[in-house]
């Protein structure tokens, strides 16, 4: 039997690489995290760092070719998704693990009334009869705050506003009461007042269903307001993993610090913003050592020699940076002797 104290989802050493005519892109290059029921994990990082590839890998939805999971395991309630058959996967997708996207039309069929689409998922996964499925579908639409749900259920996606489509997608994702919800930039395309509504809605439904949520975003504000813990990604790696409060009050990795410093503050005047000079390395040509080294102010010779590992500190925060290892002190002493 699956033990409920254990994480519902555990990702270990996940590597997803893409082989294209330009070479091999190490989009996801050794990712570890776990998620418990009722918990929200944030995955943040800049464009192209591998957030979406990570989340698509969990449901084995990476476009293939060019993508392939080349290493690692993804344990859902103890079973390894990487080794499952397509049949087994279909039973999990949209049922036990659901996903919502930035663009709702990626998961909605444009020519089928939205109520139908939700009912269909319920018939398939929950084995409900036609009438019950329809009734439940309308319940879900009501739950996500769609006005006059009976009427809206009969409309096709294009007859709804962007905010409403986003809600329909959430209703569909949650109809089968999943244990894990993966939300990839669920509110990025929406206006802030609508974003506030949707985030509140996800929180409320999470409390009701008790699911674990993976919230993928580039918006640190969204992370601060919705997540229990955060993984910061940079060039295919997690560089810092910490409880949300700690990440914001005591960031450790130079990249995390730089990221937080470069944010314009809404409650404070700043004359000049701190910046991180330079650019992210290409996933096709990653350096041998620390991937942040070319932009890092603390860079030492050791940083260029070898990629640091993600190491747990005494306060439980995990960091991938040579400064937080024993070698760093040794290294500094050696430099002094020389």
């Amino acid at each position, binding site marked *: 039997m699956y033990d409920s104290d254990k994480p519902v989802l555990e990702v270990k050493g996940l590597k997803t690489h893409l082989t294209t005519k330009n070479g091999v892109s190490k989009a996801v290059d050794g990712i570890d995290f776990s998620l418990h029921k009722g918990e929200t994990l944030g995955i943040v990082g*800049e*464009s192209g760092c591998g957030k979406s590839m990570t989340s698509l890998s969990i449901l084995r939805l990476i476009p293939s070719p060019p993508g392939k999971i080349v290493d690692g395991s993804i344990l859902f309630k103890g079973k390894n998704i990487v080794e499952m058959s397509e049949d087994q996967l279909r039973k999990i997708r949209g049922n036990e693990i659901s996903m919502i996207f930035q663009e709702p039309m990626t998961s909605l069929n444009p020519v089928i009334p939205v109520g139908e689409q939700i009912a269909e998922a319920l018939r398939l996964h929950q084995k409900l009869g036609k009438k019950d499925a329809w009734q439940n579908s309308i319940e879900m639409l009501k739950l996500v705050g769609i*006005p006059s749900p009976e009427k809206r259920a009969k409309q096709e996606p294009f007859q709804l*506003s962007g*905010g*409403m489509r986003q809600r329909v997608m959430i209703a569909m994702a949650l109809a089968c009461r999943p244990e894990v919800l993966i939300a990839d930039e669920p509110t990025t395309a929406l*206006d*802030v*007042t*609508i*974003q*506030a*509504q949707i*985030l*509140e809605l996800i929180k409320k439904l999470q409390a009701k269903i008790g699911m674990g949520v993976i919230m993928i975003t*580039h*918006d*640190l*504000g*969204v*992370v*601060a*307001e919705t997540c229990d813990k955060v993984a910061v990604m940079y060039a295919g790696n997690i560089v810092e993993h910490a409880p*949300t*409060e700690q990440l*914001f*009050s005591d960031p450790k990795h130079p990249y995390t610090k*730089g*990221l*937080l410093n*470069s*944010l*314009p*503050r*809404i*409650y404070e005047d*700043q004359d*000049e*913003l*701190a*910046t*991180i*000079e330079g*650019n992210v390395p290409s996933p096709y040509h990653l350096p041998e050592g620390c991937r942040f080294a070319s932009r890092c102010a603390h860079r030492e010779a050791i940083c260029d020699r070898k990629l640091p590992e993600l190491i747990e500190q005494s306060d439980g925060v995990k960091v991938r940076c040579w400064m937080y290892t024993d070698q760093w002190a040794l290294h500094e002493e050696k430099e002094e002797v020389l």
Partner: protein
Amino acid sequence: MQAQTRKVILQVDHLKQYFPVKTNSLFKPKNYVKAVDDVSFKLYEGETLSIVGESGCGKSTTGRAILRLDEPTSGKVHYSGKNILELNKRDMRKLRGDLQVIFQDPFASLNPRQTVKQILNEAMAIQEVVPKKERLERLLELLSYVGLPPESLSRYPHEFSGGQRQRIGIARALAVDPRLIICDEAVSALDVSIQAQILNLLKKLQRQFGLTFLFISHDLSVVRHISDRVMVMYLGKVVEIAEKKSLFDQSFHPYTQALLSSIPVPNPKLNRDRVILKGDIPSPIDPPKGCRFHTRCPFVMDRCKTEEPELREVKANHFVSCHLV
């Protein structure tokens, strides 16, 4: 700065931009999207005025109408004593040297087949500001202003990152010695660490050349950082306009309040009283009667549903259009 002593560089009066909407019936009356519906404001020399609001509120349309990228339906735009909207093609082209624009997606606005050198040269040629012999010198100068290395000249846009491309866009705008730059979501597509670089650059250039910015953005944290004054729009109307400090210290319009409280703040310890609005943004084709915000306003009164509020000064230089205040 005292409002009385500031010099007005651009004045917009009763600007309207109605776009016709196609109907599929001959007999249906023609519909219009009232994208900008009677908007007036002044722009002072050397300041940054931001326009904020949600998608479809008319921010970009206002910017485009000022530049006549789309011909506005009616209104006036005065710049150095002349109504821009009445200028002929030749005079308008001359004016383009003073008024420049930087867009959100620099890639879409840069010709992929031109090198940086060609792009910048073309901009200078149109305005005939620099004699041919001095152009190379000027090109290198422009690159140094925006922090690009000289060897960028022979490269093509696709060889640059998003942030670098935005620098090319800025260099192109600077090429003609403008006085006013309209920045339409100029940093919205950039990652935060790169966004910070570009915001710093814009501020530096403003000080260096005494530029005036009309900064259009949906991101209130960015707006707070860059602006002197802020104008909030909702469904084609100005709902509030004030000095930045005044607006962020105390906003009066319920929409501005909701907008400010909706921004996710990167500080998990902060406990805010959040105003969460109900409902969606209505269609600008058939905007609500009376106050356009009344369908989502938490304080709506009977009067709001029929009577349109006027923009009134509630504090020095702080204007609001709401029946509550």
